[in-house]
């Protein structure tokens, strides 16, 4: 691998498969959001988040079906079975990841006493999940996530926003943040204090790095 000679084919080479790529990426993003959410659901023992994952799982299934069907049609049209094969295999792998996330969410929804070890293990992980309330003096107030470049500044990706009783899952750069919102974010430990500062919120002891 060489940093200088990254070869990326243009759309023409991909032909009729380029539209498909959009859905494949949507599937990839969905499956990754689901994994992030599932670890959050386990960490916070949140049935709300777990239910959302179950809903996203249906969405991922539908996307996979869409990708496979469109790919098959495209293969018939273009006789490019090789590209079709790769598209289908990728979609299947992404759907497998979505399934795994759903299976984790299922642990939260099951009616058994939660084992505290799960939360403890997740807290020790290299990638942390944290939740923070946006304070009244936060520079994030009434700004979109893209405007404040939250991910670029703190390295923390917001995976969900809780506003009162409702959640916004997988917010994008146009999502506007309000004071009182709770952000659930994942990222490196070093990003946590930066995120808290941006939210104008005090870092609680149990959010601090233990080591």
């Amino acid at each position, binding site marked *: 691998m060489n940093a200088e000679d990254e070869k990326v084919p243009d759309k023409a080479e991909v032909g009729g498969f380029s539209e498909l790529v959009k859905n494949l990426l949507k599937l990839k993003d969905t499956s990754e959001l689901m994994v992030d959410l599932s670890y959050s659901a386990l960490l916070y023992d949140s049935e709300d988040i777990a239910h959302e994952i179950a809903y996203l799982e249906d969405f991922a299934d539908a996307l996979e079906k869409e990708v496979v069907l469109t790919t098959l049609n495209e293969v018939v049209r273009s006789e490019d079975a090789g590209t079709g094969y790769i598209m289908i*295999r990728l979609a299947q792998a992404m759907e497998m990841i979505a399934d795994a996330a759903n299976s984790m969410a299922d642990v939260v929804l099951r009616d058994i006493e939660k084992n505290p070890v799960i939360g403890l293990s997740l807290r020790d992980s290299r990638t942390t999940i944290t939740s923070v309330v946006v304070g009244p003096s936060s520079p994030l107030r009434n700004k979109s996530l893209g405007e404040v470049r939250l991910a670029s500044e703190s390295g923390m990706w917001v995976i969900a926003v809780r506003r009162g009783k409702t959640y916004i899952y997988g917010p994008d750069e146009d999502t506007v943040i309000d004071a009182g919102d709770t952000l659930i974010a994942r990222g490196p430990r070093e990003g946590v204090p930066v995120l808290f500062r941006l939210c104008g919120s005090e870092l609680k002891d149990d959010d601090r790095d233990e080591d």
Partner: protein
Amino acid sequence: MAARRDKDHTRKRPKAYEGVEYEPRSVRELLTEMKDVSELIVDLAYSALVFDSKEMADEVRQLEIRMDKLNYQIRLTAMMASRSLQDAESLTGILQVAEAAQNISDAAGDIVDLISEEIDTRPFLPFVLRDADEKFSAVRIASDSRLVGRTVQEASTKTSASVNIIAVRRRGGGWIFDPEPSVKLRGNDIAVLRGTEDGHGMFQRAARSAAPASHQRGQGAERQ
């Protein structure tokens, strides 16, 4: 994640229980490592596609084997810890999470298998992931860049915390995957990054030859 660089790797994967000594590690430790592997392995699998890198694909396979072993260990440990129906019930939740982590690693293995397919359309793979939200890039660090001698942690927090260095390739020295935060960067290293477009840009600027202009001020300005 120290013991994962086993030498012997072939396409035929060894069974998880072959050659596994029972290690007295806690369920908590095992599950933490499984979560870490489940996240790293997916990043590495997608970047293996983006860069068409056989070395990264090999690392994914190593991690897949590591994950199998961890899953086997956690089952053993959980069974030994279980003394009552109540114990067993609460441990099944843990095992289900562990199993899911392993399924994620299997999916990552399936993804990198595409790299070894003898299909001439394979070059389109990097294109597929080009427009994804979180991007991968490979950046060469100039020998007089201000990042030289910095640790991985410093390099990501000083440039912007928004890039995650998932691998470093040393000139003539192979790869360091998932580098420890204390690993020091050298000139001519190639860092494989995952993060936002902004983050990639900031890191790229820092990785260039050290310019006389004060970079600190430049960064401050971007904050607004």
